[in-house]
């Protein structure tokens, strides 16, 4: 009896500490490497993908675009509001369709509206990038997008492996940002593209504390990816803007990579 009680308390404490930290803005596509012209269906969701808990409301983003070679294509008019269901609640999210036709790298980027986090009395704005490749032709995945803050991949982000590593360089206003804490998570459940929902079951138990890397003097971090899946890196408070509507703003840089088994 005593043991059960302690265990329950332990689990509750872990759940609470986990929930306090790990916000991740998703820009999710089911596939990141396509061979033929494909209508990409994307979901923009703000949640806690590793714990798979509470989902948060998104307001209309400030920017949403795709970078293809030297062209930046505005996708704001493609955004459609949806209601996204997490295991505990539902929240406002967005979806978009974009046809990937020509060969090359497509970098999807969102600059969300700042989100007010009551628990911490701060605003959070996670500037997020995801990558899709068509036809195997690399055309600029390693290029920065001149965002306020961003993680530039130093490994091809749509071709990393379980058991391998991923290295990114954090930039703030285009310059390397050293000493910044980057949280690391994976999407720990199924994504129901039709039903706009996270799965009820998690793939595996989330680690007891946040997975963290600190950027070095060049703004770089490296992480060994233990399992296949969709991995996100969020470097916190990396951006130049630190205040929004009189409150603290954490302007974060997020990147998503897909790791597969070799």
């Amino acid at each position, binding site marked *: 009896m005593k043991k059960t009680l302690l265990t329950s308390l332990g689990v509750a404490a872990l759940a609470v500490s986990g929930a306090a930290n790990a916000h991740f803005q998703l820009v999710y596509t089911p596939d990141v490497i396509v*061979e*033929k*012209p494909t209508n990409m269906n994307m979901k923009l969701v703000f949640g806690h993908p590793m714990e798979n808990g509470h989902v948060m409301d998104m307001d209309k983003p400030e920017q949403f675009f795709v970078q293809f070679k030297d062209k930046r294509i505005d996708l704001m008019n493609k955004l459609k509001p949806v209601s996204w269901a997490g295991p505990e609640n539902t929240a406002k999210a967005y979806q978009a369709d974009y046809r990937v036709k020509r*060969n090359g790298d497509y970098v999807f980027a969102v600059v969300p509206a700042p989100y007010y986090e009551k628990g911490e009395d701060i605003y959070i704005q996670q500037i997020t990038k995801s990558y899709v490749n068509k*036809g*195997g*032709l*690399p055309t600029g995945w390693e290029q920065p997008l001149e965002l306020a803050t961003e993680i530039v991949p130093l490994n091809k982000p749509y071709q990393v492996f379980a058991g391998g590593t991923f290295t990114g360089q954090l930039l703030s206003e285009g310059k390397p940002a050293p000493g910044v804490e980057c949280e690391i998570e994976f999407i720990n459940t199924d994504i129901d593209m039709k039903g706009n929902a996270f799965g009820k079951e998690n793939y595996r138990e989330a680690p007891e504390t946040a997975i963290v890397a600190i950027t070095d003097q060049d703004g770089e971090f490296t992480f060994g990816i233990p399992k296949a899946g969709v991995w996100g890196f969020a470097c916190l408070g990396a951006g130049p803007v630190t205040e929004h509507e009189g409150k603290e703003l954490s302007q974060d840089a997020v990147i998503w990579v897909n790791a597969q088994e070799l």
Partner: protein
Amino acid sequence: MNKKQFSFALMLSMMPLASMAHTPLCSCYDNGDGTVLCEGGFSDGSSAAGVGLAVVDANGNKLLDGKMSEDSEFEFNKPEGDYTVQFNAGPGHLVEISSEDITE
């Protein structure tokens, strides 16, 4: 195209997915206006400008011969019937794309 040739073409058309250095890549699209656009390149991101490209009919007869433009593109009028695009970047670097895989 007999079955063996087809398998070979299929195998070659899968080659862009293989992750060898300097693998030739080619994709073609039916523009829907009677023309077909092909774009080429290499897996290391280098240009395919000047690389030869041919279109052959179902019997292997060459219908046209051309070269990739400065933008690594080649456009041609869509032939009647089945055809195959051959992107020829040298020995061991031939990519063949069957018309049935060329869609809008």
